């Protein structure tokens, strides 16, 4: 009975995640696309709940929905005109790309179904124990990757600023002239 319920939960969560995800990439209005991400991210949180990863459910909702999605919406509203809703979203290779990706999807689904999975070997423990274990891992075994991820985010931040910061060519040339005349 529980396995049955688990299957029902899995299938409905899958629908909740994938259908909005398709809408995110296919809708022509960027703000709508942003809003479609909401059910998609909630669906992912549901998967974590199904896997009894309690801490990740909270993190998923707090960070992804509470912070990142809101940030994306802000960014979209500030740059609303960047995309023309009438612009074509596919090109001549679209069909072939679809065929190749579809075949890849079928192949990997086939492979994943046929794989002799070991299954869960130990129960993940209650929310408190999981969080303690996660915290310990982040300062021991995963200290280096964790710090590297922070540096990665820093690099991405700097990179984004360097790429997106408004340029002031006239101001720059004035500065140069000023230096020359000053010297």
């Amino acid at each position, binding site marked *: 009975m529980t396995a049955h319920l688990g299957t029902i939960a899995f299938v409905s969560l899958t629908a909740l995640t994938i259908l909005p995800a398709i809408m995110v990439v296919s809708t022509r209005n960027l703000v709508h696309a942003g809003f479609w991400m909401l059910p998609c991210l909630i669906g992912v949180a549901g998967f974590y709940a199904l896997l009894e990863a309690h801490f990740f459910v909270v993190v998923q909702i707090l960070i992804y929905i509470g912070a990142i999605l809101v940030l994306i919406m802000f960014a979209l509203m500030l740059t609303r005109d960047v995309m023309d809703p009438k612009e074509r979203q596919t090109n001549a290779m679209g069909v072939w790309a679809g065929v190749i990706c579809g075949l890849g999807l079928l192949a*990997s689904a086939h*492979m*994943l179904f*046929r*794989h002799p*999975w*070991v299954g869960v070997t130990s129960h993940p423990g209650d929310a408190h124990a999981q969080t303690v274990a996660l915290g310990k891992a982040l300062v*021991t*075994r*995963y*200290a*280096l*990757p964790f710090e*590297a*991820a922070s*540096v*990665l985010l*820093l*690099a*991405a931040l*700097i*990179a984004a*600023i*360097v*790429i997106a910061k408004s*340029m002031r*060519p006239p101001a*720059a040339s004035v*500065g140069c002239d000023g*230096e020359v005349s000053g010297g």
Partner: protein
Amino acid sequence: MGAPTQAIRDLSGILPILVLWGVALVILLGAPLLRRGPGSRLAAPLGGAGALGALLVLLRGSSDGFGDTLFAGAALTDTLYSSGAFVLLLGGFLSVLVAQTYLRSRDLEKPEYYAIMLLSLSGALLMMQANDLIVLFLGLELMSFGLYVLAGFARTDAKSDEAALKYFLLGALASALMLYGIMLTYGVAASTELSNVQSAVARGALKEPMGIAAALLLVIGLCFKIAAVPFHQWSPDVYEGAPTSATAFLATTAKIGAIVAFLRVCDTIAGGYHTWLPAIRAIAILSMIVGNLIAIAQTNVKRMLAYSGVAHAGYLLVAVACMGFRLMGTKGTQASILAMTGAVFYLLAYALALIGAFGVLAYLSSRDKDAQTLNDLRGLASSQPAVGYAMVLFMLSLAGIPATAGFIGKWQVFYAVLTGGDVALAVTMALTSAMGVYYYLRVVWYIVFEESAAPKPSPTGHGVEARPRAMTGVGAAITICCIATIGLGILPAAISSFLTVVR
């Protein structure tokens, strides 16, 4: 009492990375002071000091503690790492020298350039030090993020923007494929730590469809980064569009980081060689042939060097293929160790010649002229003999002519693959190398035998500007590359204490 000592050992194992992070942060925090005025002269020296400092720390630390795992198995230090890191940081330092002059003359200099360079180098180091596929992936991403931005650093130049976008999109695709491969690896090995992956492979994990898919996806992801055929399409546009100093940096950094990681991954999964060895051999042969063939048709030197880079990726993949011989008897083991040492030496020779060649292009560029084509090199030997003959030397080294470092690198890889008994790869390597000589010598022909195209040097032309520029960073970089290319070509043993990989 044991814990603090372990923490210190962990931290001292990644000291070069910490130095790079520290100096990058100093540059970023000091950016307002470094951006204009007298402080702007300090950005490049700080960047150079970061790379050089990390190199010195690496050399000091390399006398003790080999084969250690750090952070409970997340990373490690061994001779493959330390020799690869030596080459990487040396290349990084030379790239800073090139960038200093080039960015200044093209009016592109910003302190962030050097900070991003150092962060990118730290990513490549992390990749080489990774003992866990997750760490490897993070290192790859950290390295790549920096390279995407550096490619697009000339924001007013549409080609530079195109290069950055193309590199980013295809790089993101490669990363996604690789991450999928890591996920499948976890599926078969129940761990991403390399030692556990190795034992899973020994149990026959690479005979299952999922293991095969995992290995192939990892191979594809890394092949993207080194621009091997058929995953090379991004490289000519990126090499051409990126500012020349960034091209020099990304061409060497990505190749060094990815090849060392590639050697480590393939060494780990050597037990399942029948799965991935045919793929690597096919990609290597294709890269050597296609890269050399298309390079012949190029008149833009940056594009030509991109296709030559594809060919060099093929030669380096020959060394990677040798990892698959490790479990085929004593000859095979010997071949795999020879190939590791050979690949690292090859990377050093390649980095020296490539940074030197891009350095010459950077040297010839000015505010309103970006030297890129064969015509820009016409008659260089008579108009500026020192730079002209330096370029000739770099071309000869890339072609693998004896008495240059490039020959020694190529010979070592060739010898390794012959020891492993793979005649097909060895023959392809020799034949395609001979093919490559044609287009390298064509550059030499333009430099030495063609008449200079410029009727008379205009007041802003190189004739006037070139003299003082010899004293700047790029002049130093070209000089170092020249001396090292000849020195290592004649006395390769001089550097073998840093570069020999022990297993």
